């Protein structure tokens, strides 16, 4: 899938992937001495966006729903994912790309559910980019009509700028965080289509104002949807599964075979 791959040493490691690419720029042209100005109108993220477009067509051709899960560290993303995979069970095959700076702890937790997972360690990097994800998906080789969850690095800032080729960004916000998080990190909430307000079982013990949080999220993104869930108690999880199923229906709509459930 990575046809224009220029794999350099960006510090990211994909579990199990051996990288053998090199690219040298040996060129022996003689250059003019005089200074000149070149007008360019080049999008700096164009390369990432081209990889994202490749990922997106890979998913579209196979009727795969790809979701990019973004949040701060500690919002309960992995626990939510473990619960979700369990609920999808035999109905829908799940695959996971795990992004963290270090360790394969999260991928190990996912694998314990039986779902195939590939860990990307970004090293010093603060986000996943479309190129790393392309290689990770290549390794995962997801089956047609499946769901690929991409669990981004816990960070509400940097991942907003990098399209990975997903159908939707889903922001996970736990009720132990502040109501004003959508205002503090507006780019992420502007880029997301859905917010999962996680750990809702803790609400009786907190002063967290759900209505205010939703109002704040809508200030930066009027069309964003919000679901209140608890991976621990299971509250609201059916609504999330219903959203997933509907989103998957959209992923299958353009899929030639129409039915691909396993």
């Amino acid at each position, binding site marked *: 899938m990575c046809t224009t791959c*220029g794999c350099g040493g*960006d510090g990211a490691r994909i579990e199990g992937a051996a990288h053998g690419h090199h690219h040298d*720029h040996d*060129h022996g*042209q003689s*250059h*003019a*001495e*005089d*200074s*000149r*100005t*070149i*007008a*360019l*109108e*080049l*999008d*700096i*993220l*164009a*390369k*990432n966006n081209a990889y994202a477009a490749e990922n997106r067509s890979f998913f579209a051709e196979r009727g795969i729903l790809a979701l990019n899960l973004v949040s701060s560290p500690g919002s309960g993303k992995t626990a939510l994912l473990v619960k979700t995979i369990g609920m999808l069970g035999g109905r829908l095959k799940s695959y996971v790309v795990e992004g963290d700076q270090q360790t394969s702890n999260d991928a190990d937790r996912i694998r314990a559910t039986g779902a195939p997972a590939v860990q990307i360690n970004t090293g*010093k*990097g*603060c*986000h996943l*980019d479309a190129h790393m994800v392309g290689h990770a998906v290549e390794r995962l080789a997801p089956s047609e009509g499946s769901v690929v969850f991409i669990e981004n690095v816990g960070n509400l*800032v*940097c991942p*907003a*700028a*990098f399209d990975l080729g997903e159908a939707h960004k889903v922001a996970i916000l736990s009720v132990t965080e502040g109501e004003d998080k*959508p*205002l503090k990190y*507006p*780019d992420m909430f*502007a880029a997301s289509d859905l917010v999962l307000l996680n750990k809702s079982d803790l609400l009786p013990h907190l002063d967290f104002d759900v209505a205010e949080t939703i109002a*704040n999220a*809508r*200030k*930066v*993104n*009027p069309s964003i949807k919000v679901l209140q869930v608890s991976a621990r108690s299971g509250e609201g999880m059916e609504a999330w599964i219903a959203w997933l199923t509907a989103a998957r229906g959209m992923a299958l709509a353009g899929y030639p075979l129409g039915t691909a459930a396993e």
Partner: protein
Amino acid sequence: MHEMSLCENILGILKEQALAQNFEKVTRVSVEIGSLSCVEPEALRFGFDVVMRGSLAEDATLDIIETEALAECLDCGATSAIAERYDPCPMCGSHHRKVTRGEEFRIRELEVN
């Protein structure tokens, strides 16, 4: 601190352009940053010097052109400046606004030899 990898993207573009447009040294890079573009100009400047070291753009000047963001109000139709994504429409107070400018992040011009 994704500005570091954004600088690596800029360096990648400079290397490609050096081959395509036949130059070997870049002395100035002019970059347009929309005020709602997820790019922090100061962090970009910091990353730029570090990433360009030892490359064809070592010691190049980074010019940053900051573009003011505009949003169209989906309720009253007015287009006006928007400093933060949560700013209401100054005409009718609605938050139902669509950003029409200010998310740009691109190289506008290079000075090379």
